[in-house]
C-alpha cells in the first residue's frame, strides 16, 4: 500500500519529469538530473529562506534558553519556559528542519527513479513501461542515454575511476556545505561535536556514494554546490571578505527588548553567526557583558 502510494505520488511523476527534462535537453540524462536538482532548489527556495530565518531566530534565542536551563531544575517547568520563549519570539524549532525532511523522500525517489529510468537489462526497460505516462512526447524519448560526459550514470561509485572521482566530489562538497552553514552550537562541547561532524559527515556520505549509482551522486554534488552558493549568499564568506547578500532578518521586537546579548540577538556579520556567543567568546563572557 505504502509502496503503491510512493510510486503513484512521487516516483512516477519523478521518472516522467526526468524523462521529460532529458528529452528537452537533447537526450542528456545527466543534464536532466542537474536541471531537476536546480528546479527542486528553486521550488523549495522560500522554504529554505524560511529555514535560514528560523535558524537565526533559534540562534538568537540560545543564550536565553541557556539561562532558562540554568534557572529551572524541574524539566517540565524548564520546557514550559523554553516553549514560552519560542512563542514570544515566534520561533518554531521544527521549521529549521522542514526543507531538510522534504529532501529525504525526494532523494529516495530519485535513487529509485534513476534505477528505473536507466534500465540495466531488457527486463528493466519492460518494467519502465509501467511507469511512463502515455504522452507521445515521453514515449518517443525512450530509452534514455545512460552516458553523461563519458560516464555511465547507472554504475556505482566503486565501479570506475570516474566513480571514485564522484565519491571524492560528494565528500568535498558535503564538507564545503558544512563549513558554510550556520551553526547554533552554544558551548565548547557542542562546537567540538560540530567540528567532528564536519569531518565525519563528508566521509560517511563519500562511503555511501561508493554504492550509489553515479546519477544519484551527481544529484548530491549539484545539490551541495547549490546549497554552498546559497550559504555564501546568506552568510557570506568571511575568509575571503565576502559579505552576505541576503541580510539577516532581525529578531522580533519583544525578544530584542529583553535580549540579554545584543550581538547574539541580531548578528550582523557572518563570523558572528558562527556561534551564538560571538567569535571566541564563551557563554560566561557573554553573561558578564549582559546589562543587569
Amino acid at each position: 500500500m505504502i509502496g503503491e502510494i510512493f510510486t503513484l505520488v512521487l516516483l512516477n511523476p519523478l521518472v516522467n519529469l526526468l524523462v521529460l527534462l532529458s528529452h528537452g535537453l537533447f537526450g542528456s540524462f545527466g543534464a536532466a538530473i542537474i536541471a531537476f536538482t536546480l528546479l527542486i532548489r528553486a521550488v523549495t527556495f522560500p522554504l529554505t529562506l524560511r529555514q535560514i530565518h528560523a535558524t537565526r531566530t533559534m540562534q538568537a534565542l540560545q543564550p536565553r534558553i541557556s539561562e532558562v536551563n540554568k534557572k529551572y531544575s524541574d524539566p517540565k517547568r524548564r520546557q514550559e519556559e523554553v516553549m514560552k520563549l519560542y512563542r514570544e519570539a515566534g520561533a518554531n524549532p521544527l521549521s529549521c528542519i522542514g526543507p531538510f525532511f522534504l529532501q529525504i523522500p525526494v532523494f529516495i525517489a530519485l535513487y529509485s527513479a534513476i534505477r528505473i529510468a536507466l534500465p540495466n537489462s531488457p527486463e528493466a526497460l519492460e518494467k519502465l513501461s509501467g511507469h511512463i505516462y502515455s504522452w507521445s512526447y515521453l514515449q518517443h524519448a525512450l530509452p534514455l542515454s545512460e552516458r553523461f560526459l563519458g560516464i555511465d550514470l547507472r554504475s556505482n561509485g566503486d565501479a570506475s575511476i570516474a566513480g571514485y572521482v564522484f565519491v571524492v566530489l560528494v565528500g568535498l562538497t558535503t564538507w564545503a556545505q558544512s563549513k558554510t552553514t550556520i551553526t547554533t552550537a552554544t558551548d565548547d562541547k557542542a562546537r567540538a561535536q560540530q567540528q567532528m561532524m564536519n569531518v565525519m559527515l563528508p566521509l560517511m556520505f563519500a562511503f555511501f556514494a561508493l554504492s550509489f549509482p553515479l546519477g544519484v551522486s551527481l544529484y548530491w554534488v549539484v545539490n551541495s554546490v547549490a546549497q554552498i552558493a546559497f550559504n555564501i549568499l546568506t552568510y557570506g564568506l568571511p575568509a575571503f571578505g565576502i559579505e552576505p547578500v541576503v541580510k539577516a532578518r532581525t529578531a522580533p521586537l519583544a525578544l530584542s527588548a529583553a535580549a540579554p546579548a545584543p550581538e547574539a540577538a541580531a548578528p550582523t556579520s557572518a563570523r558572528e553567526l558562527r556561534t551564538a556567543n560571538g567569535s571566541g567568546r564563551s557563554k560566561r563572557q557573554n553573561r558578564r557583558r549582559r546589562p543587569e
Partner: protein
Amino acid sequence: MNFRRAAILAMALLLLPLLSSCVKVFNPVGWAPVAFDGDSAYVVTSKGHLSALKLDGDSATASWTFPDKNRSDDKKLELKAIYGAPVFDGDRLYLASFHGGVFALRKDDGRPVWPASGDNASKIEGDIPGGVALSGDNVYFGTTEGHVYGWKKSDGTPAAGWEKPKTFDGGVWATPVVVGDTLFVATMKGDLHAISLADGSEKWKFSASGAIADLARISEEYLFVPSINRHLYVIRTADGSVAGDFEAGDWVWTTPAVSGNKVFFGDFGGKVYGLDITATGVTPTWSQPASVKGERVKAGAAIVDDVVVVADRSPTVTFISAADGSVLNAVPLTDGDTVRADVVARDGEAYLVTTDGKLFRADPKQRRVIEITINGVKK
C-alpha cells in the same frame, strides 16, 4: 548542517536500500523461447543455463546443460541471461548470452566447439540482449553498444569484411534478421538498417518514431517492426518503404504469430491484435482487439489450427479465435513465474517456458495447458 539533521540524513541513507526495495529493479533474467531440433527441445532451465531435453509425453529429461557447473572448465562461465533461442546448423547450435559472449555448441553433448575454453565476452563491446542470425558461413549478432558482429561459424573469428564490427547509432537489442542476401538490423535509436551481406554496404535505412526493440520476418516481402512508442510498422524488405503503420494501445515489444498474410501480436496494455497485410496496407482482422484482461504481453504469440495462443505476464495462457478474435479459453499458470519468452508452435500444439525455467504445453484443441516435468537438469 547540524548534528540532528546529519543524524536524520544518515539514518535515511542507511534505510535507503530498504525503502527503495519496494521499487524492484530487474536484473537480466532472459527470455529465450523453447527451440526444437529433431526430437530434442532446448530450454533455458535456469538463468543463463541452456538444457537439451528429450521429450516423453508430459515429462522431459535433460541430456546436458550448458554451462555445466560440475565441469571445472565451465565454473568461471557467467552468461547472466539468454534472450535469443539457439539457432541450429548441422551438428551444432549457436547461442548468444547477455554477458558471456557467443558460443558454438555440439548438439549431442552441449560442449563448446568455440570458444575452446572460457568465454569470448572480451571480444565483444556491450551485452547481447538478442539472439544470433545465421547466413552462409557466418553468424551475426548485435550488442547494447550499437555494434553488429559477423563471425565465422567455423571458428568464431571475424568473417571477411567484418574484421571490425559495424557500428550503429543506438543499441542493437533485436536479433538481426536475414532475408535473402540482406541483414536487417534494428536499433534502439529507432532505425532499421538493411545491410548487404555481399559487400557490407547499407542498402536503405528506415527511421521509426520510437525505439525498435524487436524485429521479425513476416515473409520474403515484409518485416514486422514493432516500436516501444506503440507503433507497429510493416516494412517492405526490398526498399524499406512502409507497407503499414498501425498504432496499438500500448508498447509493442514482441514477435508475431504469422499465418499467410495475417499477423497476430499482443501489446503491453493486454490487447491482442490481428492484422491483414495487403499490397495496399494493413487492416485489422477483427472489429475489436482481443483482451487478455490488461496484462502485459511480451511473449510472441503462436498460431495453431486457427487458434492464437497468447501468454501474458500474469501468467495466463489465452486461446483466441484467429477468425473473429473471441477468447475461447484462458488458463492461468498457477505454478510458474511470468512468461516473456515467445510461444512456439509445433506439431499442432504450442510450447512456452516461464522465466523460472518451467516448460508448458498448450493444447488449442482441448484449450488446456499442461506442465511438462523436467528431470535431470544440473543446476
